[in-house]
């Protein structure tokens, strides 16, 4: 109990004094997880849309596979991307191993299934009448899709927030692909893991509080736009 209180105290301290290392780690964490969320969204929302709007054989199977990937362990994604970007992997020449870029790739892979699947369910949630109406009013296919997407925008936003939540909180990909290099690839979660292993429980709790505070702020910003 004492350690938790001390952690809260230390968190407040770190934030008020704008501890440079904390600021640096926090900025890096935001940069990496926001980048991966943005990239994953740009890829996954259209894919989700495609799966929803097209009917083809094996659609159900594909959706099942994507949903199964929700449970993929982060270290497994890390390992998979590690084998790809390691210097003797197929993308080795890009020198992505142990860099923020490598971490972004890993996290992008990690959260794509979530965003794709929730995009599909967001679009399925739109009342069928709306697309019928759009078509009967003479909308082209593109216009119909656009109308439905617009109708589902809040649910889509929720999908993206969920993806962001998984990206910022994961440690497996960040540790394996980033290597937790001080001043270069160290993010909040890997720092927590390191400090805990060093026995600095209070500092770990402080960093945890900071991570949750960031998540809260981002959610508040996004939610403001959700409610009218």
């Amino acid at each position, binding site marked *: 109990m004492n350690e938790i209180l001390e952690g809260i105290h230390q968190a407040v301290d770190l934030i008020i004094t704008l501890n440079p290392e904390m600021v640096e780690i926090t900025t890096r964490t935001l940069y990496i997880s926001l980048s991966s969320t943005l990239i994953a969204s740009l890829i996954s929302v259209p894919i989700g849309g495609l799966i929803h709007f097209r009917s083809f054989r094996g659609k159900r199977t594909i959706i099942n596979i994507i949903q199964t990937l929700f449970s993929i362990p982060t270290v497994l994604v890390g390992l998979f991307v590690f084998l790809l970007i390691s210097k003797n992997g197929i993308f080795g020449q890009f020198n992505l191993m142990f*860099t923020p870029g490598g971490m972004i790739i890993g996290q992008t892979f990690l959260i794509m299934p979530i965003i794709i699947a929730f995009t599909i369910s967001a679009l399925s949630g739109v009342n069928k009448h709306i697309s019928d109406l759009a078509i009967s009013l003479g909308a082209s296919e593109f216009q119909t899709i656009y109308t439905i997407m617009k109708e589902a925008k809040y649910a889509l936003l929720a999908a993206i927030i969920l993806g962001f939540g998984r990206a910022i909180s994961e440690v497996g990909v960040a540790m394996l692909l980033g290597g937790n290099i001080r001043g270069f690839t160290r993010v909040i979660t890997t720092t927590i893991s390191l400090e805990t292993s060093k026995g600095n429980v209070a500092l770990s709790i402080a960093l945890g509080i900071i991570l949750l505070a960031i998540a809260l702020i981002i959610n508040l910003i996004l939610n403001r*736009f959700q409610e009218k």
Partner: protein
Amino acid sequence: MNRVTIAGILLIAVLLIGIGVYTYQGTAIPEDKVLVVATTTSLEDTGLLNDLEAAFEEKYPGVDLRVVSGGTGIALEYGKKGDADIILVHDKTREEEFIKDGYGTKRNPFAYNYFWIVGPKNDPAGIKGLDPTDAFKKIANEGSKIPDQVKFVSRGDNSGTNSREIKIWNKTGLNYNGTVRNATWYIESGKGMGETLVLANEKQAYTLSDSGTFLAFQGNITLVPLITTGKSLLNVYSAIPVNPEKVKGANINLANKFVEFLLSKEGQDIIANYGKQKYGQTLFTALYGQPEPT
């Protein structure tokens, strides 16, 4: 303007700021100025590498030394795959194999200390003063009799410390994979040295630790060193540059410079004095050009 659009713009703005900070900070460093050091956790957990990194970067401005820490097993793997340019490890047998296979250029011992058998103050197995092999034998004996009091925590992670531990088990004449690993008193943590010490402390168990990490953690745990001498406990750290002829893209120039720095008077002084301020006692013995003790 649509609120979602505003949210999107906000997000992208934050992102751009991040990217700005980044290009300014690190990614602009050319590849030949980057030295990736894969190290065993004991050198990182004690904090020694932080000091060496600072001094090295000061000596060669513009160079970025990046430390990745893991057990000796994964450090060697990073070297083989070309993700690290130099490895700092402590497992002579595997180091020599690494060089024999052509992955490393040369083994450069730069410091040593000892592995210690540490355990609870009341020493339930009564191993104090024994020779390391006998101590392990006694732990196994007592452990099978009173497993709720006598426990042993192993790293179990293929690290240098782990392979030394297994070596000692093999010397006892017990069947390591059969008898020892399957015993209830034998716990494999699968973690780094620091975390393993914390776990052993939690369980009031015995464990094998390098003296450096133990001293660095002494403030947080109640375990005490019980056996600190014995030939089989010698722990030599060495630096091995990754061979660019075998592993494409390894930065041999900087790796050699780092070795040169480690072995120089300046580097050896940092190692020899490390810990005095922070822990009240030095953690490593520097070699100062002497051959490694055997």
